């Protein structure tokens, strides 16, 4: 399976859940049972080493980052999401907000927490071709992230952090970074995500019993229902609408809990998506593998990591032929029906880093990639990764005085702005080595 639909891991490699269980079994994390409904959490067994300077642990400030995975900005203008709409209207919104390449779940969640682009974070896409292992795999290992996250920075200042991540691969890549972590359950087969009703129960339990300063929550239903919604290409989006209404109601309970417990006045609530969504019919599928293999120079020397609306092409032939091969891959790709554009991965605007291969190919709106097999690798109608899925909702609410009221900004915001915003909110001094790529939106 390509892109967003569940993890793709080499044979014999443990799943994120197995890695997490091992952390608990070996005593690196301590298992907690909270919420009275069988919810499992784990906490770091040892307190992280504190950074120099005064710890911030006495602060009342709380930051909640709620990711409505795959949501389109205009979906919040409908009647299905009254809670999100009100939160947006009362706070500061960014109507020009965007996901960053590749417009996929894992890289954009990593950008949210690191504040840097993939050429620095090491995570350009959901799926890469791992040159060392010679296999296509999902970026779901904790050591795939090469830089500090704001989670770890807050830990070092004595603050408590929590992750409540509905998707198995997000749970995997953020690993044991947070002081407190939800062990997602139940995970649905195929989608490998926990339904939002369970994720929200976990978020509320963590709020009530662990009260972390920063909580990072991924709500996966809007994305997962969107991927599988066969009415999407017709514009009906029946499943998707159900998910929007349900998830909005759950977020309403979360906001109510903040208010009823008095946390609201000390809180910022950052709501955003990691990417949006586009739908294609069964006859609008692009598969580049056969095109590459049909060329004498490229035959058998191109590996493809398919990421929904983006294909990453890797040259595996002789280094001496690299430049010629890159030019040839681009030339051939743009001629394929449904392809929007093909870029040299080294293009300065992409900032994807070498993990993303040599050529990045985007499809047009209403199309999707399925590689290497045009039939079996990506049968789902909902996809993202291409420019048609770039726009995202992004707004900041909450009762803390730092939150502007009833405002909209005409500046561009993006997923890389979350970490600097959180850092600014808590008053963290300094920036990561090399500085933030994003900027605080407060």
């Amino acid at each position, binding site marked *: 399976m390509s892109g967003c639909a569940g993890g793709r891991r080499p044979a014999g490699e443990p799943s994120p859940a197995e890695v997490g269980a091992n952390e608990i079994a070996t005593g690196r994390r301590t298992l907690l049972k909270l919420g009275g409904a069988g919810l499992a959490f784990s906490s770091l067994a040892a307190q992280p080493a504190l950074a120099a300077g005064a710890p911030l642990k006495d602060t009342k400030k709380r930051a909640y980052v709620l990711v409505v995975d795959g949501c389109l*900005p*205009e979906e919040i*203008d409908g009647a299905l999401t009254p809670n999100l709409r009100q939160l947006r209207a009362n706070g500061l*919104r960014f*109507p*020009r907000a965007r996901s960053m390449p590749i417009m996929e779940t894992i890289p954009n969640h990593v950008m949210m927490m690191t504040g840097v682009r993939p050429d620095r974070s090491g995570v350009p896409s959901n799926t890469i071709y791992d040159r060392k292992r010679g296999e296509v795999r999902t970026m779901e290992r904790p050591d795939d992230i090469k830089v500090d996250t704001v989670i770890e920075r807050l830990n070092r200042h004595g603050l408590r952090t929590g992750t409540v991540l509905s998707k198995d691969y997000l749970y995997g890549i953020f690993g044991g970074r947070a002081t407190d972590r939800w062990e997602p359950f139940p995970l649905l087969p195929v989608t490998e995500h926990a339904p939002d009703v369970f994720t929200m129960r976990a978020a509320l339990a963590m709020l009530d019993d662990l009260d972390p300063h920063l909580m990072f929550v991924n709500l996966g239903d809007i994305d997962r229902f969107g991927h599988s919604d066969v009415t999407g290409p*017709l*514009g*009906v989006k029946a499943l998707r609408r159900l998910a929007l209404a349900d998830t909005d109601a759950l977020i309403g309970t979360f906001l109510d809990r903040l208010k009823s417990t008095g946390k609201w006045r000390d809180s910022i609530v950052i709501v955003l998506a990691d990417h*949006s969504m586009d739908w294609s019919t069964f006859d609008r599928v692009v598969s580049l593998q056969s095109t590459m293999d049909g060329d004498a120079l490229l035959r058998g020397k191109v590996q493809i990591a398919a990421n929904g609306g983006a294909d990453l092409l890797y040259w595996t032939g002789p280094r001496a032929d690299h430049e010629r091969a890159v030019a040839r891959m681009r030339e051939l790709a743009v001629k394929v029906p449904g392809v*929007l554009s093909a870029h040299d991965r080294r293009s300065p605007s992409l900032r994807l880093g070498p993990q993303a291969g040599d050529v990045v190919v985007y499809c*047009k*709106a*209403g199309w999707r990639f399925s590689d290497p097999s045009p039939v079996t690798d990506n049968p789902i109608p909902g996809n993202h990764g291409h*420019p*048609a*899925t*770039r*726009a995202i909702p992004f707004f900041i609410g909450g009762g803390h005085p730092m939150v502007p009221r009833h*405002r*909209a*900004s*005409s*500046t*561009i915001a993006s997923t890389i702005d979350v970490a600097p915003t959180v850092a600014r909110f808590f008053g963290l001094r300094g920036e990561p080595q090399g500085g933030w790529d994003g900027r605080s939106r407060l």
Partner: protein
Amino acid sequence: MTAPTSLSSPVRRRTVIATGAAGATLTTVASNRRADAAAASRRYFQHGVASGDPLPDAAVIWTRLTPTPASRPGSGKGPRAEVEWEVASDQRFRRVVRRGTFTTTAARDHTVKLDVTGLKPATWYHYRFAYRGVRSRVGRLRTAPAVGSSPRYLRFGVVSCANWQAGYFAAYRGLAERDDLHAVIHLGDYLYEYEPGGYGYGMDDRDIRPHDPAHEMVSLADYRRRHAQYKTDPDLQDAHAKYPWIVTWDDHEVTNDQWKNGAENHQPRREGDYRRRRARAHRAYDEWMPVRMNGTAELGDGDRLYRRLTFGNLAEFSMLDLRSYRTEQVETLLPFPVPTTEPAVSDPDNTITGAAQLRWLKQALTRDQSLWKVIGNPVMIAPLAINALPDQVVVPVNDLLGVLPDDGFPINVDQWDGYTRDRREVFDHIKDHQVQNALFITGDIHSGWASDLPYDAATYPLSGSAGVEFVCTSVTSNNLKDQLGVPARSAPTRAVEAAILVNNRHIKYLNFDDHGFSVLDLTAKRAQMDWFIIGDRAVKDTRIRYSTSFATKVGTNRVTQVSGPVGR
């Protein structure tokens, strides 16, 4: 933004108040001097002053000098003359920030046009000209906000289609009387080419005031004289003096239904080579309008009119030229509003923009410099058709037979409906790149419209929308009610409006009855267009009143009616 104080013309709006005999004497002397100065000013600067194309650090200023009585527009007569100009940050010119001398001659019809640079962004300035110690009236302009800045709001007057013969320019008076705009957008048909009796008021083309020259404009002298005549209108002069203008042309700046190599109202046998006629029209336009053509205020360096103007990160205007590069309109048997079934409107070889301008427009949309991608669009882009069929039906039928227009049977092939492949390319580009907040503002059709822009009109709203379009009505040019010779809001126009709305679910507002102007207000939350309408065009001081407002919330690509106008 700072609301500037009102500027009144020294000629038209002077009020004298005297108290006591001494005061009366002094006032009379002063008044006489001012009257003399005003008369001299009227003599030298008969056509007012104007400004345009504001940038963060520059703007074009304009006037026309009449150095001698013989130096009439288009006459080719008159001496070389030195005109002084100055720009100040205050109304009394105590803080002059730029000044200079401009040399004009009969070769440029004694027009004065220059690009004043070194200005501060988002700032009101005042400007004036002087000849032999006699000053022009004072104009004012506002520079654009700085690149990257976030203006809280932007507000523009929007007008099109002003036919001198059809009546008085009360709509321009409406703009000049406001004090809350940042600029005026003119979307074309600033003037008309017709001879007296050729196109006027109502179905019998009565001339409320006849054109000069008294024949269709064809020669360079004709175009100059016609421009000059329009610029003697006091309401137009006031509107030009009050705000910088951002203009584009439609067809009548040259002649009716022009395309790149001809026009409906051009007869080569009598009127010569079309491209030469157009070059003369463009030359006069460049001389007489406060606009940068080919990116400069110079004359004779090219006539490219499509251009971008950026207002911080809130709005970027792409002003289109949809006449100079288009292929010929598809021939139809019956006139507007009778639909045509001609499939050639979807011929991929037909273009309304030309290839270069289409590439440029797509770049403007993708580069995403600002929240609102405003397209100054001389003719309507919203599909306006009947019997639209879904793409899933049309595409295979046309692949086989090529007998159907892409987007239904269009009512007016002179607009984007006659060039559906260009429209599809723009809309596909918007969709492929998820371009947000594309906002087309449009003129040409002498009626008010607010519309979503469906990707597929037949399946709308399921197909989604590429943006929205607001269409201002005409200043004076005949609308459907006038052409039918029926009263406003009577059954015939209501019937046509109803038929169009039923067949085009994306169109939310349509008014075939009124003339006037619009006000476009942009914030980071929404874009709103207000329509103001005038009474009888034949009455100089006819009443102006508010009509309706529609808005689009940011990111939605849909229009909805809102309760009232902005800023009043």
